[in-house]
């Protein structure tokens, strides 16, 4: 699909959403693939509503996200009024845009047409007889249905947008009592809507048509994690990575050259006979250090946006992701003082972020007997969708056979979706597609 068509779809979706929310529609749910311009779409719709005289409440999931939205609003819609509702006694952080009013008491909200930004947590406590024309919810899959219930006094209309492929919020308690409830309070709010035929019937359901972040050639590998279709916005071969200097290790040269195609590269290390440490793989960490060093020593040149001149990769262009904190600690040790500006973190903390180049430790590396938790797709989906130019996934080579030999059980509550089966299938597809496309490089 051409970019023009994609842009038309975005425009059409935006118009439909506005029409829906301005008109008789009361509920809109938009699924967004990673890096698809979700917040951009959210603010584009909301700005039109505000222009038409609506009073819109916006719920972000954290204060940082709320502040980020405020910054974007100030940048793109400075002429439209907006207020940031902070917690009691709070003041605006330094560098907060002056175009946005800051209030720390809901009683001070003017309720004039405009945008009112706060966190879900704050909105649930607002005791305000005034209501809003629309409650817009960003990162909606991070909001539990129980939280949404507390917001029922705010608005008659709801606009939810988010990425269903992300890691869901952690549920630490025993929720078996509510697994078969018609409205499970612990489930993401949009999921409850989509699973309920009556609520679906009342809803406008849409999806953002394209992933803008990833290289064109990477998009197909993340699609198995989603139930809806989307395209790549980047043109084929639009992004690039080229080594300029000589690098001693010819296999690394091969890997970086493969990255230039835009598809991920799966780098495997042999699984040792004597067994694997479960979380901290020192050899793997060393290899990652070597890769980072080779990338930088080789003066890799990247092009991220079309038309831009190639520029040298810096440490800040590289991100590393591993599931376990202990492995991330080992990675920091391995990278040492030479590479302190390379960001290393868990997939949970990588959500919402991006880098031109990502190196990820496969979540199943060193896991020879996967549990249901291991087969959740959120972590791999996040790892595989942060990069703008190149992704290296590094792992021990047992993962492919482990996945192929694994026979999942479906122990979920009666009538509920087979999440484990689906997760296993998605994991297996991800691996086998890379294998079929000859994207696996085996290191000795």
């Amino acid at each position, binding site marked *: 699909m051409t970019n023009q068509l994609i842009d038309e779809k975005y425009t059409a979706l935006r118009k439909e959403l506005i029409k829906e929310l301005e008109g008789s529609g009361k509920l809109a749910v938009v699924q967004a693939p990673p890096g698809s311009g979700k917040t951009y779409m959210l603010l584009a719709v909301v700005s039109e509503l505000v222009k038409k005289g609506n009073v819109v409440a916006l719920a972000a999931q954290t204060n940082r996200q709320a502040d980020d939205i405020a910054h974007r609003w100030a940048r793109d819609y400075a002429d439209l009024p907006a207020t940031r509702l902070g917690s009691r006694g709070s003041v605006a952080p330094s560098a907060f845009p002056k175009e946005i009013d800051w209030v720390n008491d809901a009683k001070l909200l003017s309720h004039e047409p405009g945008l009112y930004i706060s966190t879900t947590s704050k909105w649930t406590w607002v005791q305000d007889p005034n209501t809003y024309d629309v409650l817009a919810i960003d990162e909606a899959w991070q909001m539990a249905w129980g939280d949404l219930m507390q917001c029922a006094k705010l608005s008659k209309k709801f606009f939810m947008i988010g990425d269903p492929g992300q890691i869901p919020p952690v549920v630490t308690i025993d*929720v*078996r*009592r*509510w*697994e*078969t409830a018609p409205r499970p309070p612990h489930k993401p709010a949009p999921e409850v809507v989509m699973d309920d035929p009556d609520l679906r019937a009342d809803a406008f359901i849409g999806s953002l048509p394209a992933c803008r972040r990833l290289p064109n050639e990477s998009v197909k590998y993340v699609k198995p994690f989603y139930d809806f279709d989307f395209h790549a916005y980047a043109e084929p071969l639009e992004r690039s990575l080229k080594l300029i200097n000589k690098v001693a290790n010819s296999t690394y040269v091969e890997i970086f050259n493969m990255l230039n195609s835009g598809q991920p590269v799966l780098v495997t290390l042999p699984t*040792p006979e*004597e*067994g*694997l*440490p*479960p*979380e*901290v*793989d*020192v*050899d793997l960490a060393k290899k990652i250090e070597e890769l980072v060093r080779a990338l930088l020593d080789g003066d890799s040149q990247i092009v991220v946006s079309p038309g831009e001149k190639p520029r040298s990769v810096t440490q800040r262009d590289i991100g590393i992701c591993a599931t376990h904190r*202990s492995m991330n600690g080992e990675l920091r040790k391995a990278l040492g003082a030479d590479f302190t500006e390379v960001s290393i973190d868990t997939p949970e903390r990588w959500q919402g972020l991006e880098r031109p180049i990502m190196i990820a430790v496969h979540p199943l590396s060193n*896991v020879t*007997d996967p549990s249901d938790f291991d087969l959740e797709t959120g972590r791999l989906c996040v790892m595989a969708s942060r990069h703008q130019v190149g992704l290296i996934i590094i792992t021990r080579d047992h993962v492919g056979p482990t996945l192929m*030999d694994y*026979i*999942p*059980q*479906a*122990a*979920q*509550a*009666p*009538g509920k*979706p*087979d999440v484990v*089966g*689906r997760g*296993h*299938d998605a994991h297996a597809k991800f691996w086998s597609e890379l294998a079929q496309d000859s994207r696996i490089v085996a290191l000795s």
Partner: protein
Amino acid sequence: MPGLDELSEEARRNTRGRFEQWVKNPQCEANTLSAVLNVKLSDVAKSLNYEPEYGQSPFAIQRGLQFEGWLFKEDAEVIRGAMEKIELLPADSAGFLDLRLTSNGGKTVRSTDEALEKSHALITNLVNVEFDAPTIVAGLLLKIPKGVMLPEATLIIDIITIQKLDTKFEIQVGEIKVFPDRGGHTDAGEIATARAQAGVYQHALQLTVDALNLGNAPMVSTSGFLVFTWPGSNSPVIRKGEDLTYLAKRAEKGFDQLDRVAAEVLSRQEKNLADVDLKDWIAHSRTEYKEVCWSFCDLAPRCQDLAIAEDRGIVLGTEASKILGSVTISRALELLDGADSASEVEKSLQEQLIGAIWGAD
């Protein structure tokens, strides 16, 4: 109560249970051989002087038969009522074909051959959209085309529904269990077993239909249903809309894998199978001891003894086994006490274990 001998005959030929036994621990060669050769693990355990524990209570068997009988009596009145109530079948549904053997509560079918023949006839008739198909069928019998499980690969499907779509029939498979349905508290193991079996049915039925190469063949839906009980009663609780897609894939993959594994293991036997002491062969084959073994395998105590003798981490459970990996328990203790590590694996383990003690400042 029905004679246990009669039941054994049918159990012997029913592949489903043996397949599910294999799936519980596919890496274990002893388990594989037991499933493929249809040699009970309890018999192997006895031969090694370990007392078997995994029998089935006659009360449970009788309850299962009674429940099924109750569901299907009077033209499947009870289960039909329950299905119509949740709109799994339309309100005016009619027609019941009972292919259960007389030994299993059926009325007319006396042998597996007869059941097979009638099952085949039904499926073939379903190509004709004018066929007056029964909406409920009990005990459909299939022979799995591959026949990997010696001596024969047959499946008895508890229940299917047949409904006419526009131009073809759609079959949905179901699984009946006397397990109590307690919503989210339904026993995870029981429900996983029930679903797995439904997945096997769906896959096997699809294979059978495909193998018949029929024009306008009936559709075998990937959506199935489970029939459990309201706790403490014989009232059925039916859960429709069970997505069998991945379970059918699981069955397909599982049979293929079992095919492969069985072939490999059997190929290592030089003698003719008829001349082999099968129990002895299984008793001395490679095992893969896990906690899950305690839920089904009478060799578990023997394998645990071996694991204890080898000082393996699995003695302390699955999590410890994952962490310790190939490092023995004694060696892990030495490392915890500060012994010099002899490899990167030991070093990494030592750091983690010691870090866990001194984690707080």
